[in-house]
Structures are given as structure tokens and as C-alpha cells.
């Protein structure tokens, strides 16, 4: 237990904790929960407690897991570990939605709102100054509320010489009121609605502050402006203790309106907030820390390694060509085996590179229906032991097959009503288990799966995946006789190292990681050149992606760059001690 952690455990009131990678932030939070729980049982009684909010379900599960490990118990009522989104939905938006729309009892909170683009018909009426509808440039699904009450399309507003601001505002207002009226809102809308409810009815905030007199917000660097405004409103309404825990360098959700600057501002505002640090990295050895610190500002506090064990494994650099990425993956696999590393992951940015690595040809789209693609995914989920997610997805598929004409709302309603039907869930599990195998040819798999689903799920209509029979850009007829598994690979390597995007390793501790950097300088791509801090500025989102990936491993950091980079360039950036794998070594 170091001084920094002690300071955090003791802190009350308004706290910002800046926690570097590997600083054991989850442990710190779990310990704080244990401490607070004991304290609050006598202070607030049995019905008020701490809410610990995380950004993703994975992070939420980790805190739960850590809490259980350290205390031997599950954190129970009145305390709560939740994601920010579901906390806001559950305790504010859903509970008081009828105050926005009297006749609507329970709205749907959508993960994917793209169908609004089709469903909202008046969109063509709104035209830019060129006389053309602007609903393609600013689709209805992209429109969001900003915390100051204005609207934007994913954070942007059209230039005033393209679209009249009042026309754009009118467009946004109409979309949003249509959504609210029909109870079809996104989590972003939900946060805004919650903010609006708290503003209109401060008593909601009063009560919530009584129910949860202490909030801990994990991964606070990813909070949006609206979410911050909402928490501040709660403080106004009587919330005494709020803690923002996070690392601004690991903010990865700009597309969801995350703004790490807001975290930094609070950290800097010493008058109103207690800014605390955790700057010991218990995960990585110093050489890895030096690597990802390339992206940090010079003025930032230095991160010190406090790892338990340094196996002295050098940083590995691969050079990849159009053809050798599969071999690099194999080499990395072998390295991990040699060092006895078990918890490993390979990350890439973008699907094209991912396919290339998996040795897949250009992606094939043999079916017109989206269902078979989802079935392949769901079966892989099932095989990868993600049973709960798999059941959820197969339920969605089943509802779609059984009730092809049901609208969005109705389908969700049906899914909900089937959720607690145990016999039906058992049937879904059987279905998942018995689905035809992927070693069948695409043609056979298609016909067998169609027949299987019709029979198993007792579907009246014919099940038809709409198998294509003409060649196109995305489809080569020749593959119909090839096994499904050749074209729809499991997302992991031979020795089962998962291959994912960087977002999926966020918050994780790994033993080894292999990061594939892109070759082209596209705005979303991560490249060698991005591993730098320019003019002591706060790094961009893609630099932060690199930062997250590089700070994961305990032992082995491996990076694959395009072959046109020279060894000198690598050594200049990462130091003389790195291991650059030669082509010969690769082919051994």
C-alpha cells in the first residue's frame, strides 16, 4: 500500500484521481468500496450506499471481480456497480420518462439507432442553401443533444454558408421530438434527457443523492460533456461525495462524445477538486513504460515501474509485408509459448488489416440476408464461451425469423417478453449447440442451417438466407463449394490468441501484446509516426489508442510495422535494446 493509494482511500468529497496505466486503479476502487461499505452501513443505514460507475461492461465486471476477490463477498444492495449509461437510464431517464412524455411508459434505449435514418420520413424536406436535402451529410441518427442545449451531428454543425442554422436546428428538433414521442432514444439522448429532468425536477437529484450519497466514476476520462453536467447537477442537488477516476491518455471514445479535457480541467481546478495521482505502474517494466511515455507530455509526472517481476524480455519489432503477416502471428505465438506467456492478444486498427492477418482473402458476402452472418458470429460466441451474449443474439434472430413483419418496437417487446421464458431459453441453447458445423461447404451449410432453424424453432415460413448466385465485387461463386470456416474465420490465431481491435484490450492486463501498425497515413490509422509527442500537446485520439495498446503487457511488447521503415528509425525511437526480428528469424 503506497502513499498515493492511501491518500485516495482517505479522500472524501469531490475527488479526481489521475491513474496511470497499471497503477492498480481497479484494486484501489475495490478497496475503497470495501472501506466505504463498512463505514456507510452505520452512517447511512441499510438503504443508501455507494454507486460505482464504469464506462464499459467489461470494466464493471472487473471491479465486481476484484471486489469479490478482496472481500470474499459480492457487493450487494444498497451499493451498486453499474455502467454509467445503465445507471443514468435506470435511475433517471427510464424512471421519470413519463415526465417528458406523459403517455409513454417505457422507452427503448437503442444501441444502434441507424434505422432512424430510414424510419424518419420528413428528412428530405430539410434542404441546404444549395436546395438539396442535407439528410445524407447529417443523417438523423447522427444528430445529438449537446450539454448547452444546442444540437450537432456527431459534434459538428454544418457551415452557415451551406445550411441555415435555423433550418438545421429545426431539423434536429423535429428528429429529437419524434424520437422522444416514440420512445426510441440512444444512450446519448438518455443522458441529455436525464440532465433535463434533473434541471426541471431538482427533487429527483435530491432523492438520488440520498439513495447514493457517494458516486465513484471509473474511466471518467471518457465521460461526455453531458455526463459531466449531469454529475455536477447531482452535486448541486446534494451529492456530497463524487470521485472521478481515470487516465486522460486512455480516452478512446471521441466518437461517443468523450472529452478528456473535461477530466484534465477538474484535475487542474484545485479550488473545487482534490486532484490525486496514482503514478506507479505495477504492470509493465520500465522499458515498456518508456515506450508508451513517448506519447506523454514532457511536463507530465514521470511513471515509475513497480512491477513485481521483470523477465527482461526486450521490446520486439516485426516488419510486415503484404504476405508475411500470418507468419508474424505464428512467430509471436511461438515467442509467447517459449516465454510461457499465456494471457496474450493481438490488436489491429481496421478490418482490412485484420483480414490480411488472418490470411483471409477479400471479405466474401455470399448471402443477401444479414441473418447467416449473425449466426456465424453467434456460434463463435457460443464456442468462445460467451453464452449470455450468444443467447441474446440468437433470441433476436429467432424473433426476426418467427415474426418477420414485426416492427422494431414490437420485436424488442417480444424479445423482452421471451427473456424470462425458461423453456424457450433452453430451446435457444439447444439450437446454438446443434447448429450445423462450419466444415460444411457454404451451399450445404446454407441449406442445412435453413432447414434446421425452420424445424428446430418451429417457424411457419420458409427460412431463406438469399444465397447469391451471381459474381459480384464481394462475392465469388467459386467459394460456394468451400467450407464456411475458410471464409468466416474465428477471430483468433492458431494457438487461440485473440485478434481484436485496440478498444477491446482497454483496461486489460496482458502478458504479451502484438500491435499491428498501419502502413497508410489515413486519419484513423495508427502509424509509426504517431508514436511521438509534438510540442508538448495533449495527444490525439489515435495516439491515445497506441498509448492504450502499448501500456497493456506485463512482459512482452511486440509491434509490427510496414517493412519500408529502417532499423535505425526503430532504434532511434525505441532505443538500442529492442529486438528487430529479421526475415530469416521469421522463417525459421
Amino acid at each position, binding site marked *: 500500500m503506497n502513499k498515493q493509494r492511501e491518500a485516495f482511500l482517505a479522500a472524501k468529497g469531490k475527488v479526481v484521481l489521475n491513474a496511470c496505466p497499471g497503477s492498480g486503479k481497479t484494486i484501489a476502487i475495490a478497496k475503497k468500496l470495501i472501506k466505504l461499505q463498512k463505514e456507510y452501513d452505520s452512517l447511512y*443505514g*441499510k*438503504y443508501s450506499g455507494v454507486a460505482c460507475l464504469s464506462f464499459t461492461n467489461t470494466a464493471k465486471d472487473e471491479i465486481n471481480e476484484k471486489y469479490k476477490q478482496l472481500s470474499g463477498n459480492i457487493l*450487494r444492495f444498497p451499493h451498486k456497480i453499474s455502467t454509467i449509461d445503465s445507471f443514468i437510464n435506470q435511475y433517471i431517464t*427510464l424512471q*421519470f420518462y413519463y415526465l417528458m412524455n406523459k403517455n409513454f411508459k417505457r422507452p427503448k434505449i437503442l444501441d444502434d439507432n441507424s434505422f432512424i435514418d430510414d424510419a424518419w420520413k420528413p428528412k428530405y424536406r430539410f434542404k441546404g442553401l444549395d436546395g438539396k436535402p442535407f439528410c445524407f451529410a447529417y443523417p438523423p441518427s447522427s444528430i445529438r443533444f449537446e450539454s448547452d442545449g444546442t444540437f450537432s451531428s456527431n459534434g459538428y454543425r454544418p457551415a452557415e454558408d451551406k445550411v441555415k442554422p435555423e433550418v438545421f436546428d429545426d431539423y434536429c428538433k423535429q428528429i429529437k421530438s419524434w424520437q422522444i414521442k416514440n420512445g426510441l432514444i440512444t444512450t446519448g439522448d438518455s443522458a441529455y434527457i436525464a440532465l433535463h429532468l434533473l434541471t426541471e425536477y431538482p427533487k429527483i437529484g435530491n432523492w*438520488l443523492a440520498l439513495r447514493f450519497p457517494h458516486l465513484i466514476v471509473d474511466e471518467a476520462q471518457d465521460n461526455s460533456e453531458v455526463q459531466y453536467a449531469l454529475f455536477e447537477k447531482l452535486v448541486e442537488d446534494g451529492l456530497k461525495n463524487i470521485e472521478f477516476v481515470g487516465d486522460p491518455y486512455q480516452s478512446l471514445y471521441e466518437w461517443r462524445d468523450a472529452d478528456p479535457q473535461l477530466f484534465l480541467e477538474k484535475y487542474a481546478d484545485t479550488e473545487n477538486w482534490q486532484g490525486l495521482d496514482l503514478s506507479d505502474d505495477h504492470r509493465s517494466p520500465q522499458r515498456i513504460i518508456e515506450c508508451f511515455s513517448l506519447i506523454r507530455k514532457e511536463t507530465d509526472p514521470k511513471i515509475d515501474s513497480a512491477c513485481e517481476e521483470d523477465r527482461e524480455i526486450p521490446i520486439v519489432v516485426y516488419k510486415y509485408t503484404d504476405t508475411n503477416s500470418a507468419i508474424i502471428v505464428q512467430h509471436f505465438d511461438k515467442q509467447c509459448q517459449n516465454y510461457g506467456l499465456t494471457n496474450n492478444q493481438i490488436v489491429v486498427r481496421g478490418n482490412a488489416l485484420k483480414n490480411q492477418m488472418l490470411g483471409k482473402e477479400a471479405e466474401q458476402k455470399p448471402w443477401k440476408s444479414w441473418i447467416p452472418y449473425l449466426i456465424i458470429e453467434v456460434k463463435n460466441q457460443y464456442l468462445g464461451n460467451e453464452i449470455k451474449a450468444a443467447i441474446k443474439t440468437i433470441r433476436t434472430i429467432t424473433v426476426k425469423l418467427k415474426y418477420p413483419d414485426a416492427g422494431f418496437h414490437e420485436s424488442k417487446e417480444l424479445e423482452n417478453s421471451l427473456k424470462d421464458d425458461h423453456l424457450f431459453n433452453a430451446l435457444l441453447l439447444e439450437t446454438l449447440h446443434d447448429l450445423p458445423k462450419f466444415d460444411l461447404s457454404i451451399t450445404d451449410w446454407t441449406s442445412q442451417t435453413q432447414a434446421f432453424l425452420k424445424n428446430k424453432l418451429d417457424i411457419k415460413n420458409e427460412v431463406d438466407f438469399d444465397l447469391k448466385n451471381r459474381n459480384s465485387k464481394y462475392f465469388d461463386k467459386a467459394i460456394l463449394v468451400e467450407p464456411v470456416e475458410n471464409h468466416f474465420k474465428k477471430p483468433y490465431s492458431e494457438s487461440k490468441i485473440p485478434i481484436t481491435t485496440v478498444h477491446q484490450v482497454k483496461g486489460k492486463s496482458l502478458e504479451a501484446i502484438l500491435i499491428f501498425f498501419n502502413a497508410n497515413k489515413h486519419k484513423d490509422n495508427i502509424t509509426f509516426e504517431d508514436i511521438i509527442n509534438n510540442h508538448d500537446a495533449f495527444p490525439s485520439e489515435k495516439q491515445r489508442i497506441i498509448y492504450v495498446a502499448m501500456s497493456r503487457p506485463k512482459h512482452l511488447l511486440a509491434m509490427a510495422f510496414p517493412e519500408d521503415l529502417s532499423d535505425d528509425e526503430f532504434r532511434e525511437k525505441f532505443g538500442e535494446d529492442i529486438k528487430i526480428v529479421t526475415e530469416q528469424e521469421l522463417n525459421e
Partner: protein
Amino acid sequence: MYLSKLLIKHYRGIEKVEIDFEPKINIIIGENGSCKSAVIDAIRLLYNLGEPIREISVSFDDFHEKVTTENDVQTIDKATLIEIAYEFRGLSTAQKGAFYEYMVIDPDNSENDYAKITISYEDKGGKYPQFTYNTGDIDGQKAEYKTFELFQHYYLGALRDSTRDLLNTRGNILGRVIKRYIERNETEVEIEQIMRTANDQLLERNEVKETRKGVNENLSGIFKKFPENKIGLQIEQSKTEYIVNAIKPFLPHNRQTLKDEGFHLWQNSLGFNNLIYIATVLGDIKEQIVDNSTPHYALLIEEPEAHLHPQLQLSLYNFLKQAITSENSQLFITTHSPTLTSKVPLENLVLLDDNGAYRLSNQFKDRIGENLIEDTAQNVTLTKADLEFRQKKLERYIDVTKSQLFYAKAGLYVEGISEELLISAFTALEDYRLEDYRIELVNVRGTSFYPFMYLFNSSNPRKRINKQITILTDDDRFPESKGKDYAFDRLLEDNYTKLNELDTNIQTGASVTRVANLTSVANNVTNINIQTAFKTFEYELALHNINNDRTHLKDNFLFAFMDTNYSAKTERIIEYTQTFANDQMTGEEKRKVAILLWKALPAKAEFAQDFSIHILSNLEQAKTSFTVPPYILQGLTHLK
């Protein structure tokens, strides 16, 4: 906080009912079968959710069955969804936090916020009905199960066995109270030491030691090689929960020291044991609230009058009233006791019948829109204050006998003792026993029917207690008839001048404004029927019992009764009939004879008592030769 509203759908005999409750005391009344117990059980369902062992649950028999008859074909509709919603108001700040997920803000009046939970049971086949719940005002919102602990209750059923409850270890309330004190004083160790000492001392005794030795010798004879199978002896384990459960109430002979010998509870009267039990429960509630002020405590007592004589019922009620002082405890009582009912303010009375539930004080609230007029001469509508005053009046009027009107299906309201006594006798003549129709005869002792009428006269069907009501009143035309000038003897003087004058005055007299006022207050509702006696009840009685033939006057049962008891007067009446031209009397002649008979009747109460006994003891004769005034018959018909 308190349970302010209960909405029940399709539970047992209840198709749908909405009940408003008072914060402290609610006395639920109504005839048998009005679903009083179903209401209590509906409350118990919620309060049992947080209990480790539930005393009540819903079975398939609890789903409401609606029987409809169309064209002589009976159809039974069995509901498949029971829904019960509970609304709580008056929450403390801490409670608003604890019940956060229950909180509802009224969109139309944001000051009106309350906590709400709805539970439902659905018949979907299977082994038992499917339970679900939601909190707040939206579907699918579920507060944590743990919050059900916040609903604490005590239930004393109608068929309770308080003696057993007091002596049982399971659910031992006395033990709980003691344990609470022990925990608060942190004296577990000392208490346990007492038992340890007692156990030790007993074990010193040779009698105990020898017994133990004997048993263990036998055991080792059985087990041989396994010496671990041996017993020890003790009075009770020296653990607090065991000790407190061993403490039982008894009735000491010495009421000063409350020690040593005494009677066992089984030797006590059931009524006293009930009271001991209630006293213990109240002690537990009081101490629980001290420890935890967040939960709501409901005390549910069915028919506390069982085993208690009327005065004790009232003492108990007065005690409960004082005992339930915490903001968080609420009392629900069902009763058939008129004693209890008559002493409780209307706001604490909830009347149940086939049509719904009525908080009786609500009958006097929010009625301004109905433009009720009591004084038709002044033609002013009643104000809020006027109605409140009517409520106060009614509370004063209701005594033990009148409070029975709440348990009846219908009510016959009369002015005085004459009507009260005689009408009971008349119904015997018609083979129409009031009890059979569960009609309550209410003597308002005067003409102040109004306060009663507001219970039944709302134009809003949901507010109206839809019982059939008949009001029998006199039109009291020519009230001067009571004067000395019109005494029996004066009527005979001067060749019946005064008699003729009185008859003319009565015929031309105007009925008093009361009739118009009553009609106005009846508010055009069909369940209230006002029947007026021409002149008075006694006048009508006389008028309809004069034989057309002057030679057969004594054939009539009433006339014969008068002739037997007051022959001096009947002789003068017969004498008067001799002045007529024919035996068959004209209408006018009959009227005048009737006036004389009426004036010949002795004092009201005396006559009513004697004549009603006379009717009942000569029923067969009366049936053929006595006529019940038609307005009374019409009034009775309305109640059938």
C-alpha cells in the same frame, strides 16, 4: 409515511376497487362478503414479500370470477391477472432515498409525489401463478428485492389463536422485543451467563447426573466402539435467541410482585390473551421504530371484537389510537362491531360494498360541483363548510344502533319511536322481515335525515354508496292541529264545529318545506326514495283503518284495539257516526271519523309499544283486518 391508496384488481371477490387510507387508523367495515378480508390480504401480500417465510401467497383460487347471466345462460369469466398497486405518501427525507426507485412525480402536480409499487400475479398455467412487480410508475422498473424489507407488518387474523401465538417459539414476538433490548444494551454475555449458571447448577444435582449417566451407559451399550455418542443435559442452550424464546408470559397470582406461582396462559380467557398479544406486538413496533425509522409498519387486525365485550372493545380502540403515534406505523382493522364503528370518526371508516370502497369522510368532500341545496326556501347551495358541518352532525348522530346501517344492504329511515316500533310489526304482517333483506331501520329521532343522506346521494356513481334508502316522513300540514283547540273533546263540542274546521284545515293545508328539502337533497338519485305521510304517520294509520260501513267499524283491528282499551273515546266516535245519513260513509265522513280516531290515540310511545305488541301477538287477525298505510308499503317495496 403511510399507505395512502390501494388499488386492487381481480383479487378474490374484488373486481376492482380503489381505497383511500388515513395516515394512522383505518377501520374497514361492511356487510359479510364485502371483501374486507380480501383487502387485508391484499395488504398482507406486499408486506409478506420481504419475509423469510411467507404467510400468504396467491393461488389459482384467488383470481376473480365474474358471473354474468344473459338470456338465462350463466357465464363465468375467470380473470387471469391479479394486480394490486400501493401508493405511499408522507415520506421522510431518508425514506425518499431508500424508496428512490418507488418514487413517482405527478406530472400534473409536481408537489404531489409518492412511492408506488405494483404487484401482479398472472395465471399462465403451470404450477402456481406467476409473480411480478414493478416500482415507480413505469413498466419493468424493479427496485431491489431487499427493499421489500421496508414493509414490516403484524397480522392478527380473525381466527387467530393468540394463546398459541404467545407460546409458540416461531415468530415469537415477546422474544423479539427482549432480544432488541439486549442488543441495544449489548448484554448478550450477561444473559447467556444466567443460563450457563442455571445449567451448571442443575448439572450439580445428582438427579440430573444420574439420569445422564444412565442414558450414556445405555448409549455406549448400543454404540460400543464409538464413544462420541454421548449426551449432555441442559435446560436450554445458552444462546440469546434460545433464551429469549424460552421466556413466556404467565399470570402471576401476586399482582404486585409479578413473581412466583401463577396461572398458565391456557387458563386465561381468550379475550385477555388477545389483549396480551396486541400489547406485545405494539411493544415490538415501538422498539423497532426506535431502531430503524425507515420501514413502514402495518398492524392488521381482523375483528378485534372477537372475545371482547363492548366496553373493552372501546378501551382497546382508544389504546390503539394512542399507541399508533409514529409517522411510520399504520393500523388497519376490519370489524362488524357497531360499538367500535359508532365511536370512530368518519374519516377513519372505510366502507366496502359490492360497488367499491368509500372513505366515509369523502362523502362530504369535493361535492361543490353537485350544487346541493338543503334549504329550498332560501335556495342556497351548500358550501364546503356546510358539508363539513353535516359530517360533524352525522358523527354526533351515529350511535351504536345507528352505526348498524353500515352493515346493512338497505336502510329505512324514520322520524321516531312510533314508526320504529310499529313498522317492525307491520313488516311481520306482510311476511317481510327486515333482517331477511338485511334492511336496517334507523330512527333519526326527529326530522334530521339530511346528514345521513349525504352518504348515499352523490350524482357521481363512484362517490355514492349505492344502498337503497327509504325515508318515511310526515308532511305535517297544518301544524296547529296539535293545539288545545283541536283536542279530542273540543272536536266533539258545538256540534263538531272544530272537527269540521280541522278537517278543512288539513285538507287545504300545505305540507312543510321539509318534503321539498328532502327531495332536493335526494339529488335525483334513484336509490333514495322519499315517502311522505299525508299529515302524519298516525293520521295515515287512522285514515286507512276506518271501515266504509259505520256499523262495522269494530271489525277493524286498530279500531277494535282502541275500543278495548279506550272505549270511552270509541263510544264518542260511534256516536258521531250516528249523525251520518247512511251506513256507508262518504269519503269526507270517513276522514272525519279518522281524525277522531287519530285524536283518540294515546301518547305516541305508549300507543306504539302497546299496539305493536298487540299486532305481533294477534298476527293472523291483524293480517285480515288491519291496513298498513300505502306510503309505508311503497317505501318498503323500494328496499326489496
